[in-house]
């Protein structure tokens, strides 16, 4: 490659594209580092006009040192996603300052591509992908500028965009066929994940109402058959057994699993694919109650599904659940643990239990009474319950009578246990918005829910949702997250509610977008080694060597196709005109008027016109057109068409 000075045009092009590529990192890398990068970029920009402002060798050394110190002070080391990103950004800024030769530009652009890739470590949505592809066009445009004698902004960008478009099909083929191998774990850098707000492994009053405000997606479910009705959409999470009166936590003892009865399932199964967003725990929220599932899932003693795989990444699981089930007998440990109370219930509680016939009637009756109590005796449902004191359950039951699902579930279980009925709190999600376009359910943090389970003779563990008694719409309909956010009040959307036309369109648009997003997640982001082997084995490509063969074959095929598109000789009007003119000459030759070697069209026309005066007009028209196309400046396709017509019409 030639080593030559770079012109300002190319430099501006380069600086603009690098600014664009680094811009989204403003939210990811520490502010001092981004400020440092911006400073370097601005400096280089000024130096486009003021060449002498560029730092000398010593200056450059000091700036580099500053950059290194900044990285070290902001990150511990240079490994890992955040530190690596900062490193590349800083290197890019420094490289810009010493960009003098063409070679430097190439290096800067290559670094910029690496920075572009690091963007995907933070954001993986469609917009980011589109943005990076657009900026890649600008970067390639810079390369085209360098390789042109007279760089033109628009023409270069267009040429780059054409190349990128042409490369797309091949990119997709490679994407599908390139053998994916999961990276071994030792290669993972430990990243502190931003504590994604989600269900925690304990419940305190208020812990779920905090989630009520979050529209963050937790998982999506695609059913292969029927979709369960809203009141059966209970997505099972951690089961909380132990309580100190305020806090509910999971039981530490999970060894009774092997003593459990075998649950029996009835009714029509629901088969579905669950796509979990990155999680903070290994919980997989299956529809109550999961029956069939495959590796890497397992079911713990509380019938909750857990994954052995990485849960900090999106993952998909195929699960089958049944709405009706019987878990059978209760083990001794379970029995003991699910009657646990922090000391003896107070007088007031025992009074309430007695009044609701907890001690003297069948558990089913007592449950009904209790639910009716919640329903009729002035309880209400709120996202922002008043602060409960030291004895939250008593405060809730007797003082405030206002709470969220967690309060109701906790109080319910407490009262059940007081009456000697094994009961426990189940956390999870309830409901979900059905996306008709994509045929899947979306479950968001706002769908977080807590309900209760009681153990009943001959029925096993039975789900009871006390919230349904007080706010049946919570269970029947879905949470209106947008309204909830706006007003801070609990609000539900009823499926049959009449929206305005605009609102309806908006809702449709939202559904469409969610559907696109789902497909993006499903087909692009989640295309891992498992999915790849599933997908390709359906096509008969079973092992890695086959994948490589097909990869090479398809890439070759596409290259050949593109070669045809790119290199195909476009038929030139001049040549065609010549061909048509030759046809004209042949026609005249048949009439014993062959064109002599070296005879020009004009002479030929004159001679033939004299010989055949009847054809003189036509011959003259053809000759004029031919000369215009061949030698004229302003010939166009219409002329060629006219020439063809004239020659065809010529009858000798």
């Amino acid at each position, binding site marked *: 490659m030639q080593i030559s000075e770079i012109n300002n045009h190319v430099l501006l092009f380069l600086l603009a594209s690098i600014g664009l590529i680094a811009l989204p990192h403003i939210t990811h890398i520490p502010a001092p580092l981004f400020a440092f990068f911006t400073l370097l970029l601005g400096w280089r920009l000024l130096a486009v006009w003021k060449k002498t402002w560029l730092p000398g060798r010593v200056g450059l050394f000091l700036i580099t040192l500053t950059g290194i110190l900044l990285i070290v002070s902001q990150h511990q080391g240079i490994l890992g996603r955040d530190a690596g990103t900062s490193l590349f950004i800083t290197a890019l800024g420094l490289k810009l300052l010493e960009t003098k030769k063409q070679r430097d530009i190439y290096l800067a652009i290559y670094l910029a591509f690496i920075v572009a890739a690091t963007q*995907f470590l933070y954001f993986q949505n469609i917009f980011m*992908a589109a943005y990076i592809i657009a900026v*890649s066009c600008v970067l390639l445009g810079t390369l085209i500028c360098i390789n042109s004698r007279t760089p033109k902004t628009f023409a270069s960008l267009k040429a780059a965009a054409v*190349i990128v478009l042409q490369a797309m099909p091949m*990119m997709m083929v490679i*994407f599908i066929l390139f053998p994916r191998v999961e990276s071994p774990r030792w290669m*993972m850098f430990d990243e502190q994940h931003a504590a994604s707000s989600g269900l925690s492994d304990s419940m305190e009053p208020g812990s779920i109402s905090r989630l009520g405000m979050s529209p963050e997606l937790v998982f999506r479910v695609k059913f292969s058959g029927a979709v369960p009705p809203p009141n059966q959409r209970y997505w099972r999470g951690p089961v909380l057994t132990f309580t100190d009166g305020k806090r509910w936590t999971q039981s530490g003892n999970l060894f009774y699993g092997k003593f459990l009865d075998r649950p029996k399932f009835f009714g029509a199964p629901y088969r579905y694919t669950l796509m979990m967003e990155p999680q903070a725990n290994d919980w997989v929220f299956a529809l109550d109650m999961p029956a069939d599932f495959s590796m890497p899932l397992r079911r713990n003693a509380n019938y909750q599904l857990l994954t052995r795989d990485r849960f900090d990444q999106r993952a998909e699981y195929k699960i089958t659940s049944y709405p009706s089930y019987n878990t059978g007998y209760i083990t001794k440990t379970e029995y003991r643990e699910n009657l646990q109370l922090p000391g003896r219930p107070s007088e007031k509680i025992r009074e309430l239990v007695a009044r609701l016939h907890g001690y003297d009637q069948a558990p089913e009756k007592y449950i009904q009474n209790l639910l009716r109590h919640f329903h009729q005796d002035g309880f209400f449902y709120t996202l922002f319950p008043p602060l409960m004191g030291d004895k939250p359950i008593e405060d809730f039951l007797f003082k405030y009578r206002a709470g969220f699902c967690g309060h109701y579930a906790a109080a319910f279980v407490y009262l059940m246990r007081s009456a000697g009925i094994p009961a426990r709190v189940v956390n999870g999600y309830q409901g979900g918005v059905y996306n008709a376009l994509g045929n899947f359910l979306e479950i968001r943090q706002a769908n977080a829910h807590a309900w209760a389970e009681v153990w009943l003779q001959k029925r096993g563990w039975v789900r009871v949702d006390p919230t349904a008694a007080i706010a049946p719409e919570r269970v029947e309909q879905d949470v209106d997250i947008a309204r909830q956010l706006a007003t801070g009040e609990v609000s539900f959307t009823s499926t049959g509610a009449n929206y305005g036309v605009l609102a309806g369109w908006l809702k449709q648009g939202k559904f469409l977008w969610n559907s696109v997003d789902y497909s993006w997640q499903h087909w692009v982001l989640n*295309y891992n080694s498992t999915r790849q082997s599933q997908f390709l084995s359906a096509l008969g490509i079973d092992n890695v060597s086959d994948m490589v063969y097909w990869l090479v074959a398809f890439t070759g095929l596409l290259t050949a196709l593109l070669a045809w598109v790119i290199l195909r000789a*476009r038929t030139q009007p001049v040549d065609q005109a010549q061909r048509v003119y030759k046809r004209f000459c042949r026609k005249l030759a048949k009439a014993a008027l062959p064109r002599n070697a070296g005879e020009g069209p004009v002479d030929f026309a004159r001679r033939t016109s004299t010989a055949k005066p009847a054809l003189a007009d036509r011959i003259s028209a053809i000759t004029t057109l031919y000369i215009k196309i061949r030698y004229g400046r302003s010939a166009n396709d219409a002329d060629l068409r006219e020439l063809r017509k004239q020659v065809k019409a010529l009858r000798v």
Partner: protein
Amino acid sequence: MSTALTLKERFRLRRFLEGEKPIDRPVLLSHRRIFILPSKTGLGFVLLIAVLLLIAFIYNNNLAYMLTFLLASIFILTILHNFRSLVGLVVSAGKSPAVFAGADAAFTVYIDNPGEYHRYNLHLRIAGRDARKTDIGPRQKVRITLHSGTRQRGWHRLPPVTFYSYFPLGLFRAWAPVNFNAKILVYPQPAETGSIWPGSGESGSDNGSRSQGNDDFHGLQEYQSGDPIRRIHWQAFAKGQGLYSKQYSDGGASQEIWLDYAATRSDHNEQRLSQLCRWVIDADQAGMVFGFRLPGFTLQPGSGPAHCRKCLEAMALF
């Protein structure tokens, strides 16, 4: 435009660097003559793809994979685009004027772009010289002059011309070496000005050439425009007597002079030719009528550019 190659010819290394056998006709740059290899920056690009692949692998990030594959596809695609920057061009060498040895021979090369697309930043180079660059629009023809240094008199062939291009991304270099059957005549290098005239030395004019010195002049005449500068009587001019041209006695057979190889004095053949060349040039510039003699070649006295050229050609090929 080009004949078929035998298998042996096809794999000759020379073909990749110096092109095929020289031909007279215009040469169409086709897949047979165009070669493509990644440039240094192209190898850097491969390294970039490897780094991106590593990042994608470590973080198991499908979008990073996608960017990697996009760049890999672009890399492959650039081969085609790069090829297109050369393919279809028709190149030919034009007529070029003769030069004196030591001067640069200027070869004219025509590049015709009969295609529909623009050719950007096409490079032309002959070994040891800086590249010339040009853009050629669709259906355009450009003329490029390539310079090649000459050292020896005689026929000077145009060295293989390499047409090459890095367009569009600089990742590949497509090149087509072409051997034109173009040659120009190189005259001997003229000796230093002011070298001795034939016969002014003691060796005499015994071989028939009449000596013609500066002192052997007929008379002075007032300067008229068109008179050779050489004939101006500078001494008179310096004395302020005005401009006079020296008049030599010419016209008669007795006045004509012979420039003869035998009259040159040197041990070295090239130096003798060099001296003879200088005489011819000076005599021509002075507008003299002179005969010319080389061993085995005699030119009757005459004058004018055609006569002079004949002498120079005879010496170039002697």
